């Protein structure tokens, strides 16, 4: 009788331990989807204090857009620079502009944040699209020139001809801001996606992530390739992303050449860049799309970044510094 009791209590104890192990071992995951920077923002966190951290990230991204980098919100730093041509801005804004000016120097102006007048003129993706006339384009193009940006302390000055547009880096900047918050929180693993620019991060740096690269010829979330990475920032630029169609049915995409003033025309369909910095990954993806495969090589190496190019003939190429595992999921695409 006694041994039976002992047997039952032992069994109960073991089962209780098992239950505790199962409950405690459960991953505390949290996901938040919202909208910021005219895009869908998806924040996936695991670790402790996820919900609070996700709120903080979301607020910070909205704040970053409203107070610092939006050119459509009159009270933002960038809008103030555009209207006053010279004014003191927040340290963050001055920092972004400094980094982006340096980047323009590196890529010889392929990506240039003084392109504002030109993008406003084209208004790709906006209502009532029509191709601007050649003279207006010529005029807007003459105002493009990163050399005219001067930054002293937190005071940014541009020439009368220039208008800033940080569209090429906004989503990447949002990812950088997210990482700043995550690092000082209890979060152990984070996947933050701001309109296709992605931050992948785990505290020990050893976790492997899988990133899908959008199929440039299919729906918004159909991926044709996956890449296994560690901690990194990923950004993709593609001609499919935002475009307008004129009355003759010709498509015009949103990446405007700073040389011709017209949307870039080359053999590249999309470029996905992996880099240690969000602002750079975002700017680099635009720059690589503009420059094409050969000319991007040096630029990527300079920033210790690597890229996957998808070309119009369905071939796929990786830059020389690319060391991740790439899997093509759709056999229409051929990896070279």
């Amino acid at each position: 009788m006694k041994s039976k009791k002992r047997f039952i209590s032992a069994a109960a104890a073991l089962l209780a331990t098992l239950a505790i192990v199962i409950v405690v071992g459960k991953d505390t995951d949290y996901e938040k989807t919202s909208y910021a920077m005219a895009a869908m923002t998806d924040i996936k966190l695991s670790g402790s204090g996820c919900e609070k951290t996700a709120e903080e990230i979301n607020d910070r991204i909205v704040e970053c857009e409203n107070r610092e980098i939006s050119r459509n919100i009159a009270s933002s730093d960038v809008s103030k620079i555009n209207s006053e041509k010279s004014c003191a801005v927040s340290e963050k804004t001055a920092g972004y502009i400094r980094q982006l000016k340096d980047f323009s120097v590196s890529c010889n102006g392929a990506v240039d944040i003084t392109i504002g007048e030109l993008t406003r003129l084209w208004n790709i993706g906006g209502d009532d699209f029509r191709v601007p006339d050649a003279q207006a384009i010529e005029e807007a193009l003459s105002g493009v020139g990163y050399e005219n940006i001067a930054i002293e302390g937190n005071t940014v000055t541009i020439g009368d001809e220039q208008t800033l547009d940080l569209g090429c880096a906004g989503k990447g900047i949002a990812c950088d801001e997210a990482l700043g918050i995550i690092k000082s929180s209890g979060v152990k693993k984070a996947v933050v996606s701001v309109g296709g620019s992605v931050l992948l991060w785990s505290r020990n740096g050893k976790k492997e992530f899988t990133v899908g690269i959008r199929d440039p010829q299919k729906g918004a979330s159909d991926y044709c390739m996956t890449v296994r990475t560690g901690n990194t920032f990923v950004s993709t630029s593609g001609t499919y992303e935002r475009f307008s169609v004129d009355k003759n049915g010709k498509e015009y995409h949103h990446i405007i050449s700073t040389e011709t003033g017209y949307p870039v025309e080359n053999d590249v369909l999309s470029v996905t860049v992996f880099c240690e910095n969000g602002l750079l990954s975002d700017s680099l993806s635009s720059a690589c799309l503009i420059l094409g495969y050969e000319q991007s090589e040096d630029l990527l190496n300079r920033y210790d970044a690597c890229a996957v190019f998808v070309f119009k003939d369905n071939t796929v190429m990786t830059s020389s510094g690319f060391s991740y595992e790439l899997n093509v999921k759709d056999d229409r695409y051929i990896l070279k």
Partner: protein
Amino acid sequence: MKNYFARTTQERKLLGRVDVLIIILIAAICVGSCVPLFLKKGDVTAKIIYDGETVEEINLSQNEKKFTLEVGRCDIAVEGHEIFFANSPCPDKVCMNAGRLRKSGEFASCVPEKVAIILKGDRKSPDAITY
């Protein structure tokens, strides 16, 4: 002299009640830890998010019906294992152009109307999609 070998004379059995219990427990742990693997496979669920809040979750793998949901000012249609934006008042129609979603990891969103559909479930889907 201390008797070091007291137990040597005593014969231990091969299998006691506790042994059976231990083996059952280990088997339970193994089977139990495999259950989530089986549950997660295959079943794709669609999450509909309106202004940051999940308003609906639909198990697409189990669904055979055809119906339409009104979320905000958008119409979302579900047809069997597929879900898509049937109608939206937004100007660019990016959401409708996203087409029919069926695989885990796919999503479509209408930014102006703040409506999104995200498909989840399959463990093999990527952590994120870059576009």
